[in-house]
């Protein structure tokens, strides 16, 4: 068996980790294991160390499947697999499905929190508020609190109009 990192030397260090219902295996040669800090099995959390390797697996699955091409810039999934970079901003929509798994392994979350361009900030806040109102509405209905549900529904109606307009 070959080392899964350098793909040159034979793998002599084998690691298996089960998270939830997913099993991940790593087969490394001695040098790569040392370089990744796997020589001390108690001193690391494998998930953290594997961030890079797990990501490369996800990269593979993100690039697999049909030969999808971005309609805006012509960038294909094969190009993504080769470079790990995307072609244009629109690519994020084109390849959204394959990317979502990859983003999960790379980042803290899959939804942006933080700065937004001023012009979009208000829309974004409104969308957030709308979502929270809808949640409250669902809860009010569940609790059979129809009075506040009616009030929430009216508020959502007004909000929804303004969000749609500013989009």
């Amino acid at each position, binding site marked *: 068996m070959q080392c899964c990192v350098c793909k040159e030397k034979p793998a002599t260090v084998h690691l298996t980790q089960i998270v939830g219902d997913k099993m991940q295996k790593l087969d490394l040669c001695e040098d790569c294991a040392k370089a990744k*800090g796997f020589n001390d099995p108690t*001193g*690391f*959390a494998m998930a*953290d*160390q594997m*961030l890079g390797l797990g990501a490369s697996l996800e990269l593979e699955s993100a690039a697999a499947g049909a030969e999808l091409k971005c309609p805006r*810039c012509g*960038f294909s999934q094969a*190009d993504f697999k080769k*470079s*790990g*970079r*995307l*072609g*244009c*901003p629109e690519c*994020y929509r084109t390849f959204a499905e394959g*990317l979502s798994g*990859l*983003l999960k392994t*790379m*980042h*803290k*979350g*899959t*939804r*942006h*929190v*933080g*700065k*937004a*361009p*001023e*012009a*979009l900030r208000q*829309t*974004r806040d409104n*969308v957030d508020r709308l979502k929270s109102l809808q949640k409250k509405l669902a809860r009010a209905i569940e609790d059979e609190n129809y009075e506040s549900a009616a009030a929430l529904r009216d508020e959502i109606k007004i909000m929804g109009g303004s969000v749609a307009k500013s989009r």
Partner: protein
Amino acid sequence: MKDIHTFLCSPAESTQRHGPYDRIVMSSRVRLARNLRDFAFPGWAKKPERVKVLEMVLPAVSALPEMSDSFAEALDNLTALDKQLLVERHLISREHAAKSIGSGLVVNRAETFSVMINEEDHLRMQALRPGFQTRDAWQAIDKLDSALEKKLNFAFDNELGYLTACPTNLGTGIRVSAMLHLPGLVLSEQINPIIQSVNKLGLAVRGLYGEGTEALGNVFQVSNQMTLGESETVIVERLEKVLAQIIEHEENARQTLMEKKPKIVFNHIGRAYGILANAHLISSKETMNQLSFLRLGVDMDLFPGTSRALVDELFLVTQPAHLQKQVSDKLSAEERDLIRADMVRERLKNVSRPVIKPPGGGAN
């Protein structure tokens, strides 16, 4: 056209810039990755498209008040030596130095802002500060970004945030980093466990020139890796906390070394002084590694009257491009080693041998 070498202040002046905790934190920086909505990313865009982006972005950046006294140029107008000089000053990345037509740079004279155009993203803007000032750097670059978004149409998605060429930068597009001088942790062999625990917190530890470079001169860069799902402030604050801890560990390591193994410390510092003050041929790598111990010696008051700025200046001027800039002829590597050694000997002429005090008032 301005010459970048005469535009930037001299290395001697640049090392006079001070900041909090600069004994250990050499500099702080925050960079933001931004892209224009209607153009392909630089790695995929054809040359005319890249040139068009450059022609839009370069004047927009140069017109910012922060950039009133700035050097703005297309990279194809810079020589390889100029670009290397900028890398050595940490104003552009090594990746950017490899670019030419369709890429550009805007940097202000104070070296507090640098904007790379068409590196991996259309814009990589960074705020740089001496010492431990990550929060300051964030506020400064946040302001620059807000001013720029009024002129340029940035690619932004409500779910995914700022869209970047590489998904690893998606969301905030932020990288907060600090350059740390950690000889105490290296000498006490604590650096590897520290690196591993810092990694576990989702932070990266790299060498002197960023990604894929070795830690020359015991200098390490610590930065965040995740950019999506957390706000900029949360990312900055987490890095600040970790940096404060590393500073504390480094201080403790130095103290413990002096208590338990003073001879090891004096040996490294004494040898470093001996080599630097007497060598006639020295590579840039060895110079950096020895200067690190000289710097440690200055921090420990073993060289009374010598300032850290002298060491920091040598750190800069002995690097290949800076060295080459001081002579007119094109130097071979061996000629550089010779001139470097001459220069270091000359600069250390008035620095006397390390003064070794009996450790702990003679207790050891």
